[in-house]
């Protein structure tokens, strides 16, 4: 289906809800853009923008008309593709039953190109190996992905360096570009599932001017990236395991794991066990974990990576280098979340630039 133009988002939200989707989109909560379920487009963070710098996030008033004038939220699609906690199985006596948790139909409205790239990375991790995860696949198939092309990159963004944005070119069901004067959205369809949804909206065909304006939004965004990473030779640079830089960044790093929690691709997990008091059923739960915790690498009571520099080096090296060896693609999509949400403002782009 060719691109169309819609004037408001309310019919889209209504159409998605009528189609059985819970619509999850960007809203203002506790002075941060967060993703949560909405029942009306009125709830979206219209008129707000954000200021993002290393270790700093501030909400600010933007253009009153514009709905998507902000950069990455600390939330990403990861909470929906890989839930923070999920029950794996229950065992009672000699019976073991898979939990087979529900895969709710969710329409994620407002994903950015970097978020789509992150989903593609997670697909590779959970479906591309020798042991594909059927629960991940169920969740993934229940997700409808509605992208919004970035107009206002944040101060910590570097998707252009990672070749993941700012324009959504693949991996979406629908992609919107918000245009001003007059306020409207160009809607592109990226999948068979997106077609009937777009067709059901009150719309007109996109004109050549609409399409040119939409392309201009992405061109302009690409020129306003907050940060840059030189990816040429990055694996060689990250093979400098003995660089003094690791001790320097390790001295600043609190190993708080914030970066891994906001990262849309970090997939590490651990397991917890619980036993019911009433009938003795044992339950196994998988939850997000982080390579910054001490017990992450523990073998026979001793962590392999006991020092802060060792753990920071593991994270950065995995994300930008060994991930490529393992999965044939970088683990970083350039969303900048780890920089913004680091409490001491460690900037991965700066760390990478300072390696030999």
């Amino acid at each position, binding site marked *: 289906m060719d691109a169309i133009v819609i004037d408001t988002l309310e019919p889209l939200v209504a159409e998605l809800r009528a189609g059985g989707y819970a619509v999850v989109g960007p809203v203002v909560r506790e002075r941060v853009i967060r993703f949560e379920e909405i029942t009306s487009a009125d709830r979206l963070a219209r008129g707000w923008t954000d200021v993002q710098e290393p270790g700093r996030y501030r909400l600010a008033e933007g253009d009153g008309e514009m709905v998507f004038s902000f950069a990455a939220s600390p939330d990403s699609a990861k909470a929906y593709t890989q839930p923070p906690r999920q029950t794996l199985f229950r*065992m009672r006596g000699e019976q*073991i039953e*898979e939990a087979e948790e529900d895969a709710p139909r969710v329409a994620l409205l407002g994903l950015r190109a970097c978020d789509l790239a992150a989903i593609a990375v997670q697909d590779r991790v959970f479906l591309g190996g020798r042991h*594909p995860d*059927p629960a991940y696949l169920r969740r993934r198939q229940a997700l409808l992905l509605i992208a919004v092309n970035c107009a206002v990159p944040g101060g910590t963004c570097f998707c252009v360096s990672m070749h993941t944005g700012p324009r959504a070119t693949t991996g979406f069901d629908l992609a919107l570009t918000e245009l001003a004067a007059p306020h409207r959205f160009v809607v592109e369809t990226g999948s068979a599932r997106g077609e009937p949804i777009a067709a059901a909206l009150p719309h007109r065909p996109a004109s050549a001017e609409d399409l040119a304006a939409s392309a201009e939004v992405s061109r302009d965004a690409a020129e306003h990236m907050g940060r840059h990473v030189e990816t040429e030779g990055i694996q060689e640079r990250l093979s400098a395991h003995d660089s003094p830089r690791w001790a320097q960044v390790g001295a600043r790093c609190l190993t708080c794991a914030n970066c891994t929690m906001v990262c849309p691709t970090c997939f590490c997990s651990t*397991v917890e*066990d619980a036993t019911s008091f009433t009938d003795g059923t044992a339950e196994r739960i998988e939850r997000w974990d982080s390579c910054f915790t001490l017990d992450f690498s523990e073998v026979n009571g001793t962590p*392999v990576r006991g020092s802060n520099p060792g753990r920071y080096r593991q994270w950065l090296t995995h994300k930008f280098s*060994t991930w490529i060896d393992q999965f044939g693609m970088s683990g970083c999509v350039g969303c900048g979340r780890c920089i913004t949400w680091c409490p001491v403002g460690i900037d991965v782009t700066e760390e990478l630039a300072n390696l030999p």
Partner: protein
Amino acid sequence: MTGGPHPMTPAPYRVRSRRPDRADTVTLTLEPVRGDCPPFRPGQFTMLYAPGVGEIAVSISGRARSGGYTQTIRAVGAVSAALCGKRPGDVVGLRGPYGQGWGLRAAAGLDVVVAAGGLGLAPLRPVVRALLRDRPGYGRVSVIAGSRAPGLLLFRRDLACWARQGADVRVIVDHPDHTWRGPVGLVTGLIDRVVFEPRRTYAFVCGPEAMMRKTAAELVRRGVAPGRVELSLERNMKCAVARCGHCQFGPLFVCEDGPVLPYDRVAPMLAVAEL
């Protein structure tokens, strides 16, 4: 694309027998509650789940006559202690077998040195048995095993049996007691005592990482090709299917790319602290 069982779901296995090996170590024989035990290659491991307590990676130390796996477990933490406490008839969860096994085929026709430190003898036991089942298929077979103290030595009966079957079996301890008449020191101290033709030798090494590094370095110094020395690495494993991230070692997932890995591939990484 995929409708099979979740890779993290174990199958129920019943403890058929339990044999204490040392004060802190037992060997369990495990049989599936339903169906057959999948085949395994020497050097592979399973994920053993103690209901309500947790799950750990345990190497397979052999196949019982009944068809079940024998798995040798040392009680070092909550999960291993719970597994060591299991009795015949108890049910545990088991996933696997997983991982790359020993390169038996690559060792065909060559002298073979099998070097074990402590509990490292467990994953080597099936490979020694495979070598001795096909005695003409290999050159000299030497088994060198180190133990902290004489009382901690594993599989004494197997060691005696392997000697009768034509292996040169030697044991060393580094904390002898008054009963000990054998050599004293580290496993590397036995390399000079066994006979092998370095340029036609394959080696399987398992034990604490420091022991493996020293043993591999010494074998290579003696002229064994680094690609013909295999080590079985130990890292934290939660999933065994390359999805939890815990066992990463540089670019490797030790659970899937290992645990058995050639020395030439891992030597540069073993030299990096905290990798």
